[in-house]
Protein backbone atom coordinates (compact mmCIF):
# COMPACT_ATOMS: atom_id res chain seq x y z
CA UNK A 1 0.00 0.00 0.00
CA UNK A 2 1.52 3.26 -1.09
CA UNK A 3 -0.66 5.92 0.43
CA UNK A 4 1.06 8.99 1.80
CA UNK A 5 -0.89 9.75 4.98
CA UNK A 6 1.17 12.85 5.74
CA UNK A 7 0.28 14.30 2.34
CA UNK A 8 -3.35 13.46 2.94
CA UNK A 9 -3.34 15.24 6.30
CA UNK A 10 -1.69 18.26 4.69
CA UNK A 11 -4.42 18.32 2.02
CA UNK A 12 -7.12 18.02 4.65
CA UNK A 13 -5.68 20.79 6.82
CA UNK A 14 -5.02 23.16 3.94
CA UNK A 15 -8.48 22.65 2.45
CA UNK A 16 -10.22 23.05 5.81
CA UNK A 17 -8.36 26.22 6.79
CA UNK A 18 -8.55 27.93 3.39
CA UNK A 19 -12.22 27.10 2.72
CA UNK A 20 -13.27 28.24 6.19
CA UNK A 21 -11.28 31.49 5.93
CA UNK A 22 -12.75 32.35 2.52
CA UNK A 23 -16.31 31.59 3.63
CA UNK A 24 -15.69 33.57 6.84
CA UNK A 25 -14.54 36.61 4.82
CA UNK A 26 -17.47 36.47 2.40
CA UNK A 27 -20.04 35.85 5.15
CA UNK A 28 -18.63 38.68 7.28
CA UNK A 29 -18.85 41.00 4.26
CA UNK A 30 -22.52 40.04 3.83
CA UNK A 31 -23.08 40.57 7.54
CA UNK A 32 -21.67 44.09 7.23
CA UNK A 33 -23.76 44.81 4.12
CA UNK A 34 -26.83 43.69 6.03
CA UNK A 35 -26.23 46.30 8.75
CA UNK A 36 -29.63 47.99 9.14
CA UNK A 37 -29.72 51.41 7.42
CA UNK A 38 -29.43 54.52 9.57
CA UNK A 39 -32.80 55.35 11.06
CA UNK A 40 -34.29 51.91 10.30
CA UNK A 41 -37.15 50.77 12.49
CA UNK A 42 -36.46 47.89 14.87
CA UNK A 43 -37.19 44.69 12.98
CA UNK A 44 -38.99 42.62 15.59
CA UNK A 45 -38.59 38.86 15.79
CA UNK A 46 -35.38 37.09 14.77
CA UNK A 47 -35.27 35.95 11.13
CA UNK A 48 -33.49 33.01 9.61
CA UNK A 49 -34.13 33.34 5.89
CA UNK A 50 -32.28 31.96 2.88
CA UNK A 51 -33.19 34.38 0.10
CA UNK A 52 -33.07 37.71 1.93
CA UNK A 53 -31.77 40.64 -0.09
CA UNK A 54 -29.87 43.42 1.65
CA UNK A 55 -32.02 46.34 2.88
CA UNK A 56 -31.80 49.55 0.84
CA UNK A 57 -30.82 52.82 2.46
CA UNK A 58 -27.73 54.59 3.74
CA UNK A 59 -25.55 52.31 5.82
CA UNK A 60 -22.83 53.42 8.16
CA UNK A 61 -19.77 54.24 6.03
CA UNK A 62 -17.53 52.00 8.13
CA UNK A 63 -19.77 48.99 7.45
CA UNK A 64 -19.66 49.60 3.70
CA UNK A 65 -15.88 50.01 3.67
CA UNK A 66 -15.46 46.87 5.75
CA UNK A 67 -17.72 44.89 3.40
CA UNK A 68 -15.84 46.06 0.30
CA UNK A 69 -12.47 45.17 1.85
CA UNK A 70 -13.72 41.69 2.75
CA UNK A 71 -15.18 41.14 -0.73
CA UNK A 72 -11.83 42.17 -2.24
CA UNK A 73 -10.06 39.63 0.01
CA UNK A 74 -12.50 36.92 -1.15
CA UNK A 75 -11.84 37.97 -4.75
CA UNK A 76 -8.10 37.67 -4.15
CA UNK A 77 -8.70 34.10 -2.99
CA UNK A 78 -10.20 33.34 -6.41
CA UNK A 79 -7.07 34.75 -8.04
CA UNK A 80 -4.90 32.53 -5.83
CA UNK A 81 -7.05 29.63 -7.02
CA UNK A 82 -6.46 30.55 -10.68
CA UNK A 83 -2.74 30.86 -9.92
CA UNK A 84 -2.73 27.34 -8.49
CA UNK A 85 -4.71 25.96 -11.44
CA UNK A 86 -2.58 27.43 -14.24
CA UNK A 87 0.78 25.64 -14.26
CA UNK A 88 2.42 28.33 -16.41
CA UNK A 89 2.06 30.80 -13.52
CA UNK A 90 3.86 28.84 -10.83
CA UNK A 91 6.31 26.49 -12.48
Amino acid at each position, binding site marked *: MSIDWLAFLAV*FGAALVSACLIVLCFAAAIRLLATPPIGAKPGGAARDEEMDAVERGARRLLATIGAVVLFVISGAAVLVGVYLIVPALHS
Partner: protein
Amino acid sequence: MSDAILPLIVTVVVLALVFDFTNGFHDTANAMATPIATGAMRPRVAVTVAAVLNLVGAFLSTEVAKTISGGLLKEGQDVHVGPELVFAGLIGATIWNLSTWFFGLPSSSSHALFGGLVGAAVVGAGFQAVDFGVLLGKIILPAVLAPFTAGVVAYCATRIAYAVTRRYDGHPDGRRVFRVGQVFSSSLVALAHGTNDAQKTMGVITLTLIAAGAQAQGSGPEFWVVLACAMAIALGTYTGGWRIIKTLGTGLTAVKPAQGFSAEVSTAATILASSSVGFALSTTHVASGSVIGAGLGRRGSSVRWGTARRIVLGWVLTLPAAAVVGAFAALLAHLGVVGIVIDVVVAVGFMVTVFVLAQPDRVDASSLEAEVNAAGAAVLQRGRKRRARA
Protein backbone atom coordinates in the same frame (compact mmCIF):
# COMPACT_ATOMS: atom_id res chain seq x y z
CA MET B 1 2.70 3.55 -39.29
CA SER B 2 1.59 0.52 -41.23
CA ASP B 3 -1.64 0.81 -43.20
CA ALA B 4 -3.18 -2.23 -41.51
CA ILE B 5 -3.21 -0.56 -38.13
CA LEU B 6 -4.48 2.83 -39.33
CA PRO B 7 -8.24 2.09 -39.09
CA LEU B 8 -7.76 0.82 -35.53
CA ILE B 9 -5.86 3.96 -34.52
CA VAL B 10 -8.56 6.16 -36.03
CA THR B 11 -11.21 4.16 -34.14
CA VAL B 12 -9.30 4.55 -30.88
CA VAL B 13 -8.95 8.31 -31.39
CA VAL B 14 -12.66 8.72 -32.19
CA LEU B 15 -13.66 6.54 -29.25
CA ALA B 16 -11.33 8.48 -26.94
CA LEU B 17 -13.03 11.71 -28.02
CA VAL B 18 -16.47 10.15 -27.39
CA PHE B 19 -15.25 9.18 -23.92
CA ASP B 20 -13.98 12.75 -23.42
CA PHE B 21 -17.44 14.02 -24.38
CA THR B 22 -19.17 11.76 -21.83
CA ASN B 23 -16.54 12.87 -19.30
CA GLY B 24 -17.59 16.48 -19.93
CA PHE B 25 -21.31 15.99 -19.61
CA HIS B 26 -20.93 13.70 -16.63
CA ASP B 27 -18.95 16.31 -14.73
CA THR B 28 -20.87 19.51 -15.53
CA ALA B 29 -22.75 18.80 -12.31
CA ASN B 30 -19.61 18.94 -10.16
CA ALA B 31 -19.26 22.67 -10.72
CA MET B 32 -22.72 23.75 -11.79
CA ALA B 33 -25.32 21.67 -9.89
CA THR B 34 -25.36 23.96 -6.86
CA PRO B 35 -25.50 27.37 -8.63
CA ILE B 36 -28.29 26.03 -10.84
CA ALA B 37 -30.16 24.73 -7.78
CA THR B 38 -30.04 28.09 -5.98
CA GLY B 39 -30.78 30.12 -9.10
CA ALA B 40 -27.37 31.84 -8.94
CA MET B 41 -27.04 31.10 -12.66
CA ARG B 42 -29.72 30.04 -15.09
CA PRO B 43 -29.09 26.48 -16.33
CA ARG B 44 -28.10 27.46 -19.89
CA VAL B 45 -25.80 30.22 -18.65
CA ALA B 46 -24.21 27.86 -16.12
CA VAL B 47 -23.39 25.13 -18.65
CA THR B 48 -22.07 27.71 -21.11
CA VAL B 49 -19.72 29.17 -18.49
CA ALA B 50 -18.60 25.66 -17.51
CA ALA B 51 -18.03 24.71 -21.17
CA VAL B 52 -15.92 27.80 -21.89
CA LEU B 53 -13.85 27.28 -18.73
CA ASN B 54 -13.32 23.60 -19.57
CA LEU B 55 -12.19 24.61 -23.06
CA VAL B 56 -9.78 27.20 -21.67
CA GLY B 57 -8.63 24.81 -18.95
CA ALA B 58 -7.76 22.11 -21.46
CA PHE B 59 -5.27 24.44 -23.15
CA LEU B 60 -3.73 25.65 -19.89
CA SER B 61 -2.05 22.43 -18.96
CA THR B 62 -0.77 19.81 -21.37
CA GLU B 63 1.39 17.89 -19.00
CA VAL B 64 0.25 14.54 -20.27
CA ALA B 65 0.70 11.40 -18.20
CA LYS B 66 3.66 9.19 -19.13
CA THR B 67 1.65 6.02 -18.87
CA ILE B 68 -1.93 5.48 -20.02
CA SER B 69 -2.98 4.02 -16.71
CA GLY B 70 -0.89 6.19 -14.36
CA GLY B 71 1.15 3.19 -13.17
CA LEU B 72 -1.91 1.04 -12.56
CA LEU B 73 -0.86 -1.39 -15.27
CA LYS B 74 2.71 -2.61 -15.31
CA GLU B 75 3.25 -1.02 -18.68
CA GLY B 76 6.61 -1.46 -20.32
CA GLN B 77 7.91 -4.19 -17.96
CA ASP B 78 5.88 -7.20 -18.95
CA VAL B 79 2.73 -5.67 -20.33
CA HIS B 80 2.29 -4.06 -23.69
CA VAL B 81 -0.83 -1.93 -23.73
CA GLY B 82 -1.55 -2.02 -27.44
CA PRO B 83 -4.19 -0.06 -29.32
CA GLU B 84 -6.72 -2.91 -29.18
CA LEU B 85 -6.53 -2.98 -25.35
CA VAL B 86 -6.90 0.81 -25.13
CA PHE B 87 -9.85 0.45 -27.49
CA ALA B 88 -11.51 -2.18 -25.28
CA GLY B 89 -10.83 -0.12 -22.15
CA LEU B 90 -12.42 2.95 -23.71
CA ILE B 91 -15.51 0.95 -24.65
CA GLY B 92 -15.88 -0.20 -21.04
CA ALA B 93 -15.42 3.35 -19.72
CA THR B 94 -17.84 4.98 -22.18
CA ILE B 95 -20.57 2.39 -21.69
CA TRP B 96 -20.34 2.67 -17.90
CA ASN B 97 -20.39 6.48 -18.04
CA LEU B 98 -23.58 6.39 -20.08
CA SER B 99 -25.19 3.87 -17.73
CA THR B 100 -24.53 5.99 -14.63
CA TRP B 101 -25.79 9.05 -16.51
CA PHE B 102 -29.01 7.18 -17.27
CA PHE B 103 -29.54 6.63 -13.54
CA GLY B 104 -28.49 10.22 -12.78
CA LEU B 105 -25.52 9.12 -10.70
CA PRO B 106 -22.41 11.28 -10.42
CA SER B 107 -19.57 8.79 -10.87
CA SER B 108 -15.88 9.28 -11.53
CA SER B 109 -14.89 9.19 -15.20
CA SER B 110 -11.29 8.40 -14.22
CA HIS B 111 -12.48 5.34 -12.34
CA ALA B 112 -14.45 4.26 -15.38
CA LEU B 113 -11.40 4.71 -17.62
CA PHE B 114 -9.06 2.86 -15.24
CA GLY B 115 -11.65 0.13 -14.74
CA GLY B 116 -12.05 -0.39 -18.48
CA LEU B 117 -8.28 -0.53 -18.98
CA VAL B 118 -7.79 -2.97 -16.09
CA GLY B 119 -10.48 -5.28 -17.47
CA ALA B 120 -8.97 -5.18 -20.95
CA ALA B 121 -5.43 -5.72 -19.61
CA VAL B 122 -6.44 -8.71 -17.49
CA VAL B 123 -7.89 -10.38 -20.57
CA GLY B 124 -4.95 -9.36 -22.73
CA ALA B 125 -2.09 -10.06 -20.34
CA GLY B 126 -3.46 -11.73 -17.19
CA PHE B 127 -3.82 -10.59 -13.59
CA GLN B 128 -0.11 -9.96 -13.15
CA ALA B 129 -0.52 -6.98 -15.50
CA VAL B 130 -2.27 -5.01 -12.76
CA ASP B 131 -0.37 -3.38 -9.91
CA PHE B 132 -2.86 -3.92 -7.09
CA GLY B 133 -0.81 -1.78 -4.66
CA VAL B 134 -1.29 1.21 -6.95
CA LEU B 135 -4.95 0.27 -7.38
CA LEU B 136 -5.48 0.42 -3.62
CA GLY B 137 -3.24 3.37 -2.78
CA LYS B 138 -3.95 5.67 -5.69
CA ILE B 139 -7.53 4.86 -6.60
CA ILE B 140 -9.54 3.05 -3.95
CA LEU B 141 -8.34 4.79 -0.77
CA PRO B 142 -8.51 8.33 -2.22
CA ALA B 143 -12.05 7.55 -3.37
CA VAL B 144 -12.96 6.66 0.20
CA LEU B 145 -11.17 9.66 1.72
CA ALA B 146 -12.30 12.34 -0.78
CA PRO B 147 -16.00 12.57 0.10
CA PHE B 148 -15.27 12.51 3.84
CA THR B 149 -12.62 15.22 3.54
CA ALA B 150 -14.82 17.46 1.42
CA GLY B 151 -17.83 16.70 3.58
CA VAL B 152 -16.10 17.77 6.81
CA VAL B 153 -14.68 20.91 5.15
CA ALA B 154 -18.07 21.87 3.67
CA TYR B 155 -19.85 21.15 6.96
CA CYS B 156 -17.54 23.54 8.85
CA ALA B 157 -17.72 26.18 6.11
CA THR B 158 -21.53 26.03 6.05
CA ARG B 159 -21.76 26.34 9.82
CA ILE B 160 -19.54 29.42 9.64
CA ALA B 161 -21.57 30.97 6.80
CA TYR B 162 -24.82 30.65 8.74
CA ALA B 163 -23.41 31.61 12.13
CA VAL B 164 -21.84 34.80 10.77
CA THR B 165 -24.89 35.96 8.81
CA ARG B 166 -27.57 35.03 11.36
CA ARG B 167 -29.41 38.11 12.64
CA TYR B 168 -31.50 38.32 15.79
CA ASP B 169 -32.92 41.81 15.26
CA GLY B 170 -35.44 40.95 12.57
CA HIS B 171 -33.64 42.79 9.76
CA PRO B 172 -32.96 40.96 6.47
CA ASP B 173 -29.78 38.88 6.67
CA GLY B 174 -28.70 39.40 3.05
CA ARG B 175 -27.98 35.70 2.38
CA ARG B 176 -29.13 36.12 -1.20
CA VAL B 177 -25.75 37.81 -1.82
CA PHE B 178 -24.09 34.40 -1.52
CA ARG B 179 -25.42 33.77 -5.01
CA VAL B 180 -22.94 36.34 -6.36
CA GLY B 181 -20.11 34.44 -4.70
CA GLN B 182 -21.41 31.20 -6.17
CA VAL B 183 -20.75 32.44 -9.71
CA PHE B 184 -17.04 32.74 -8.91
CA SER B 185 -16.63 29.68 -6.73
CA SER B 186 -18.32 27.37 -9.23
CA SER B 187 -16.34 28.85 -12.12
CA LEU B 188 -13.14 28.02 -10.26
CA VAL B 189 -14.25 24.40 -9.93
CA ALA B 190 -15.05 24.27 -13.67
CA LEU B 191 -11.62 25.65 -14.61
CA ALA B 192 -9.83 23.19 -12.34
CA HIS B 193 -11.84 20.39 -13.92
CA GLY B 194 -10.84 21.46 -17.43
CA THR B 195 -7.12 21.47 -16.64
CA ASN B 196 -7.32 17.97 -15.17
CA ASP B 197 -9.80 15.95 -17.13
CA ALA B 198 -9.06 16.72 -20.78
CA GLN B 199 -5.48 15.64 -19.94
CA LYS B 200 -6.51 12.04 -19.52
CA THR B 201 -7.88 11.76 -23.05
CA MET B 202 -4.94 13.68 -24.50
CA GLY B 203 -2.66 11.19 -22.75
CA VAL B 204 -4.54 8.17 -24.07
CA ILE B 205 -4.50 9.46 -27.67
CA THR B 206 -0.87 10.59 -27.55
CA LEU B 207 0.38 7.32 -26.08
CA THR B 208 -1.62 5.36 -28.66
CA LEU B 209 -0.06 7.41 -31.45
CA ILE B 210 3.41 6.85 -29.97
CA ALA B 211 2.77 3.11 -29.70
CA ALA B 212 1.67 3.07 -33.35
CA GLY B 213 4.86 4.85 -34.37
CA ALA B 214 3.04 7.93 -35.63
CA GLN B 215 4.74 10.14 -33.09
CA ALA B 216 8.21 10.29 -31.56
CA GLN B 217 8.80 8.51 -28.23
CA GLY B 218 8.41 10.87 -25.27
CA SER B 219 6.97 13.75 -27.28
CA GLY B 220 4.05 15.85 -26.07
CA PRO B 221 0.56 15.90 -27.57
CA GLU B 222 0.13 17.26 -31.08
CA PHE B 223 -1.84 20.49 -31.34
CA TRP B 224 -4.76 18.82 -33.09
CA VAL B 225 -5.03 16.35 -30.21
CA VAL B 226 -5.18 19.17 -27.65
CA LEU B 227 -7.72 21.04 -29.76
CA ALA B 228 -9.92 17.98 -30.36
CA CYS B 229 -9.89 16.98 -26.68
CA ALA B 230 -10.64 20.52 -25.54
CA MET B 231 -13.56 20.75 -27.98
CA ALA B 232 -14.93 17.33 -27.03
CA ILE B 233 -14.93 18.00 -23.30
CA ALA B 234 -16.35 21.52 -23.75
CA LEU B 235 -19.12 20.24 -26.03
CA GLY B 236 -19.95 17.51 -23.54
CA THR B 237 -20.02 20.03 -20.70
CA TYR B 238 -22.31 22.33 -22.71
CA THR B 239 -24.68 19.46 -23.49
CA GLY B 240 -25.02 19.18 -19.72
CA GLY B 241 -25.72 15.93 -17.95
CA TRP B 242 -29.00 17.34 -16.63
CA ARG B 243 -29.94 14.13 -14.84
CA ILE B 244 -26.78 14.25 -12.76
CA ILE B 245 -27.17 18.00 -12.16
CA LYS B 246 -30.65 17.26 -10.82
CA THR B 247 -29.38 14.54 -8.46
CA LEU B 248 -26.52 16.62 -7.10
CA GLY B 249 -28.38 19.95 -6.99
CA THR B 250 -31.78 18.89 -5.69
CA GLY B 251 -31.72 15.14 -5.03
CA LEU B 252 -29.33 14.98 -2.08
CA THR B 253 -30.54 18.04 -0.20
CA ALA B 254 -32.31 21.32 -1.00
CA VAL B 255 -29.27 23.54 -1.56
CA LYS B 256 -29.58 27.21 -0.48
CA PRO B 257 -27.20 30.01 -1.54
CA ALA B 258 -25.12 30.01 1.65
CA GLN B 259 -24.75 26.22 1.43
CA GLY B 260 -24.01 26.30 -2.28
CA PHE B 261 -21.25 28.85 -1.82
CA SER B 262 -19.73 26.92 1.09
CA ALA B 263 -19.91 23.65 -0.84
CA GLU B 264 -18.22 25.08 -3.94
CA VAL B 265 -15.46 26.82 -1.97
CA SER B 266 -14.84 23.53 -0.15
CA THR B 267 -14.74 21.61 -3.43
CA ALA B 268 -12.31 24.10 -4.98
CA ALA B 269 -10.10 24.21 -1.88
CA THR B 270 -9.96 20.41 -1.56
CA ILE B 271 -9.20 19.83 -5.24
CA LEU B 272 -6.55 22.54 -5.44
CA ALA B 273 -4.90 21.43 -2.20
CA SER B 274 -4.85 17.80 -3.34
CA SER B 275 -3.58 18.45 -6.85
CA SER B 276 -0.79 20.74 -5.64
CA VAL B 277 0.68 18.03 -3.41
CA GLY B 278 0.14 15.38 -6.09
CA PHE B 279 -2.46 13.49 -4.08
CA ALA B 280 -5.15 13.53 -6.73
CA LEU B 281 -8.77 13.29 -5.62
CA SER B 282 -11.66 12.79 -8.00
CA THR B 283 -13.68 15.99 -8.61
CA THR B 284 -16.89 13.95 -8.56
CA HIS B 285 -16.22 12.40 -5.16
CA VAL B 286 -15.16 15.75 -3.70
CA ALA B 287 -18.16 17.66 -5.09
CA SER B 288 -20.66 15.03 -3.87
CA GLY B 289 -19.07 15.03 -0.41
CA SER B 290 -19.25 18.82 -0.28
CA VAL B 291 -22.96 18.87 -1.07
CA ILE B 292 -23.68 16.34 1.69
CA GLY B 293 -21.51 18.28 4.15
CA ALA B 294 -23.31 21.51 3.29
CA GLY B 295 -26.64 19.73 3.71
CA LEU B 296 -25.68 18.59 7.21
CA GLY B 297 -24.33 22.04 8.11
CA ARG B 298 -27.62 23.94 7.84
CA ARG B 299 -30.09 23.85 10.70
CA GLY B 300 -33.33 22.15 9.80
CA SER B 301 -31.98 20.81 6.52
CA SER B 302 -32.02 17.13 5.74
CA VAL B 303 -29.92 14.88 3.56
CA ARG B 304 -31.68 12.14 1.60
CA TRP B 305 -29.47 9.23 2.59
CA GLY B 306 -31.24 6.92 0.14
CA THR B 307 -29.91 9.01 -2.75
CA ALA B 308 -26.48 9.18 -1.11
CA ARG B 309 -26.45 5.38 -0.83
CA ARG B 310 -27.32 5.01 -4.52
CA ILE B 311 -24.46 7.35 -5.43
CA VAL B 312 -21.99 5.44 -3.25
CA LEU B 313 -23.17 2.16 -4.75
CA GLY B 314 -22.46 3.67 -8.17
CA TRP B 315 -18.92 4.56 -7.05
CA VAL B 316 -18.29 1.06 -5.70
CA LEU B 317 -19.53 -0.52 -8.93
CA THR B 318 -17.76 1.85 -11.35
CA LEU B 319 -14.35 0.19 -11.38
CA PRO B 320 -15.48 -3.48 -11.51
CA ALA B 321 -18.38 -2.80 -13.91
CA ALA B 322 -16.22 -0.87 -16.38
CA ALA B 323 -13.61 -3.63 -15.99
CA VAL B 324 -16.12 -6.35 -16.89
CA VAL B 325 -17.30 -4.46 -19.99
CA GLY B 326 -13.68 -3.70 -20.92
CA ALA B 327 -12.82 -7.39 -20.50
CA PHE B 328 -15.65 -8.52 -22.80
CA ALA B 329 -14.68 -5.90 -25.35
CA ALA B 330 -11.07 -7.14 -25.17
CA LEU B 331 -12.19 -10.76 -25.65
CA LEU B 332 -14.03 -9.75 -28.82
CA ALA B 333 -11.14 -7.57 -30.00
CA HIS B 334 -8.92 -10.66 -29.86
CA LEU B 335 -10.90 -12.07 -32.78
CA GLY B 336 -9.28 -9.43 -34.94
CA VAL B 337 -11.02 -7.01 -37.28
CA VAL B 338 -14.38 -8.84 -37.02
CA GLY B 339 -14.32 -8.58 -33.23
CA ILE B 340 -13.49 -4.89 -33.27
CA VAL B 341 -16.31 -4.22 -35.71
CA ILE B 342 -18.72 -6.17 -33.46
CA ASP B 343 -17.44 -4.13 -30.48
CA VAL B 344 -18.10 -0.86 -32.26
CA VAL B 345 -21.56 -1.93 -33.43
CA VAL B 346 -22.55 -3.13 -29.94
CA ALA B 347 -21.19 0.04 -28.30
CA VAL B 348 -22.99 2.35 -30.73
CA GLY B 349 -26.17 0.28 -30.36
CA PHE B 350 -25.89 0.58 -26.57
CA MET B 351 -25.45 4.36 -26.73
CA VAL B 352 -28.46 4.79 -29.00
CA THR B 353 -30.58 2.52 -26.77
CA VAL B 354 -29.67 4.46 -23.62
CA PHE B 355 -30.55 7.78 -25.28
CA VAL B 356 -33.87 6.40 -26.56
CA LEU B 357 -34.72 4.91 -23.14
CA ALA B 358 -33.88 8.24 -21.50
CA GLN B 359 -36.30 10.20 -23.67
CA PRO B 360 -39.61 9.62 -21.79
CA ASP B 361 -38.41 11.23 -18.56
CA ARG B 362 -36.08 13.72 -20.16
CA VAL B 363 -34.41 16.22 -17.85
CA ASP B 364 -33.21 19.37 -19.58
CA ALA B 365 -32.46 23.03 -18.98
CA SER B 366 -36.06 24.21 -19.06
CA SER B 367 -37.55 21.46 -16.88
CA LEU B 368 -34.79 22.00 -14.33
CA GLU B 369 -35.29 25.76 -14.36
CA ALA B 370 -39.03 25.34 -13.81
CA GLU B 371 -38.30 23.13 -10.82
CA VAL B 372 -35.86 25.64 -9.33
CA ASN B 373 -38.35 28.49 -9.85
CA ALA B 374 -41.12 26.50 -8.20
CA ALA B 375 -38.91 25.83 -5.18
CA GLY B 376 -37.96 29.52 -5.06
CA ALA B 377 -41.62 30.59 -5.18
CA ALA B 378 -42.43 28.28 -2.28
CA VAL B 379 -39.61 29.80 -0.21
CA LEU B 380 -40.80 33.32 -1.05
CA GLN B 381 -44.38 32.57 -0.07
CA ARG B 382 -43.37 31.08 3.23
CA GLY B 383 -41.27 34.18 3.95
CA ARG B 384 -44.18 36.50 3.14
CA LYS B 385 -46.52 34.58 5.39
CA ARG B 386 -44.07 34.71 8.23
CA ARG B 387 -43.58 38.43 7.74
CA ALA B 388 -47.33 38.98 7.64
CA ARG B 389 -47.66 37.18 10.95
CA ALA B 390 -44.88 39.17 12.60
